[in-house]
């Protein structure tokens, strides 16, 4: 494994982490909610793509066209009902509720679909790649996921900075009460943020299923990576999440290069070091720390 290999693999997986994480970052930035069920939502999207899309006569590779909007609606509904009630109580409750939801979802999937690995069928595309140099291959699927991540983050960034709704969402994250005093219906805007979060994580989940196998408990590990990417990059910065994801990916690949057992560990260490030395992350603002 060469340095180029580490950088390339790290960047590719970092793109996936960023796609996975941007919803988490949005929900935390806007509503101060850490959704511990975020990772499991991705897995549910994967299961929907694999098991339900065929029932609707949609080839799995195109399933995201249906699943993503579906999850957007789901996100809005879950936010306006369950999560809003938790937020109204206190952050403690929200943490517990999302953790509880995570466990319920994982075990529900286990009960219904068993622990067998599943993947999203994309035919022969899954193994196609192009060669960079003698030892480095770039898989087309991974590259498209990175491309999708950049696209999604770009669109999201434009949405937040240029559109009316996006601006008001930013206002709500800055100061919820002041935004209410400007006429913002914060509960509705929370719903929109959740809808976006669920939609992006559904896309991430299906992408994951295209790259590798997933099981009911895959959500947990990916949630951890997503959170690490957000913290490393900095809360409140979408592009920071991309940088964080790539940094995490590279750290993990370097760890794997040293010793396969150290892959996740190196990522964890990077996370803990950032928390210790610069808790607001690379691009975060100090005021963003709750």
């Amino acid at each position: 494994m060469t340095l180029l290999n580490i950088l390339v693999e790290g960047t590719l997986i970092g793109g996936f982490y960023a796609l996975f994480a941007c919803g988490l970052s949005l929900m935390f930035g806007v509503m101060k909610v850490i959704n511990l069920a975020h990772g499991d939502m991705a897995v549910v999207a994967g299961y929907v793509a694999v098991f339900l899309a065929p029932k609707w006569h949609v080839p799995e590779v195109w399933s995201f066209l249906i699943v993503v909007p579906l999850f957007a609606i789901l996100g809005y509904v879950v936010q306006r009902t369950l999560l809003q009630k938790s937020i109204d109580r206190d952050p403690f409750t929200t943490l517990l509720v999302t953790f509880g939801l995570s466990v319920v979802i994982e075990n529900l999937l286990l009960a219904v679909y068993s622990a067998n690995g599943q993947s999203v069928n994309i035919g022969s595309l899954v193994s196609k790649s192009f060669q960079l140099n003698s030892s480095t291959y770039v898989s087309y699927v991974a590259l498209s996921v990175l491309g999708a991540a950049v696209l999604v983050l770009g669109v999201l960034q434009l949405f937040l900075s240029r559109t009316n709704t996006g601006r008001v969402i930013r206002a709500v994250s800055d100061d919820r009460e002041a935004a209410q005093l400007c006429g913002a219906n914060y509960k509705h805007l929370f719903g929109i943020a959740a809808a976006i979060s669920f939609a992006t994580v559904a896309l991430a989940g299906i992408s994951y299923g295209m790259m590798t196998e997933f099981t009911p408990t895959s959500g947990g590990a990916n949630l951890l990576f997503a959170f690490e990417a957000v913290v490393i990059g900095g809360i409140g910065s979408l592009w920071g999440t991309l940088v964080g994801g790539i940094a995490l990916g590279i750290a993990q690949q370097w760890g794997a290069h040293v010793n396969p057992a150290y892959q996740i560990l190196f990522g964890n260490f990077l996370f803990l070091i950032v928390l210790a030395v610069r808790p607001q992350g690379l691009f975060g603002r100090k005021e963003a720390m709750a």
Partner: protein
Amino acid sequence: MDTPSPLLAVTDLTVHHGQLCAVDSVSFEVGRGDVLAVIGANGAGKSTLLRTIAGLHHATSGEINFEGHEISAYPAHRRVTSGISLVPEGRRLFQSMTLEENLIVGAHKAAAGAFDIAAVYELFPWMPDRRKSKVRQFSGGEQQAVAIGRALVANPKVLMLDEVSLGLAPIVIERIYEIIPQIVASGIGVLLVEQDVSQGLRVASRALCLLEGHTTLEGRPEELTSEQIEIAYFGSHLGAQGEKESA
């Protein structure tokens, strides 16, 4: 200057913070072009009063009528679209945004009326040059002006100002208060809360004094003596027994 039906009519409003009674059976009216100044010491309940009218706090009992409608059940954002805007204590600008963005957010649910962003720029001529600057770099006085502008662009019928002079230099406070007549001229009713009694009374058409949540004095500023105000504000005379403080 009482019009037949006031814009805002508060009747026997009582508000609690947990077990503490912050506002105790307070009643008043604000009509078009009125300036009602609510004065009182720290903790007298003034901010709670404004926040409750704005919808950020629940009243225990009492009525809030706006243009004839009982709005106690309206969420805060709906009160804004009905025509009540609050400039909150501490300015509360959107720190990650520019001046212009703050105003745009303030205008996003605006009613039709005299005040749009251009009108606010006329009111505060220094703003157009700074409109792309982030507000967190502004001075206290500038931030206060932006906060007022943000509330104005919604074209409220009643504008509430909570302690706008807090933390500002006297000359800055004066400049802020200079715009009140212009606001009032367009027919907006103003309800303002001030710890600085003389400043509050200078712009007011009527005054209300609160002490520990209840009304201790009411009337036109020109009809109130400083002794009356002192007693209403503090609850008793300052100075030695039997001596009167002169203005």
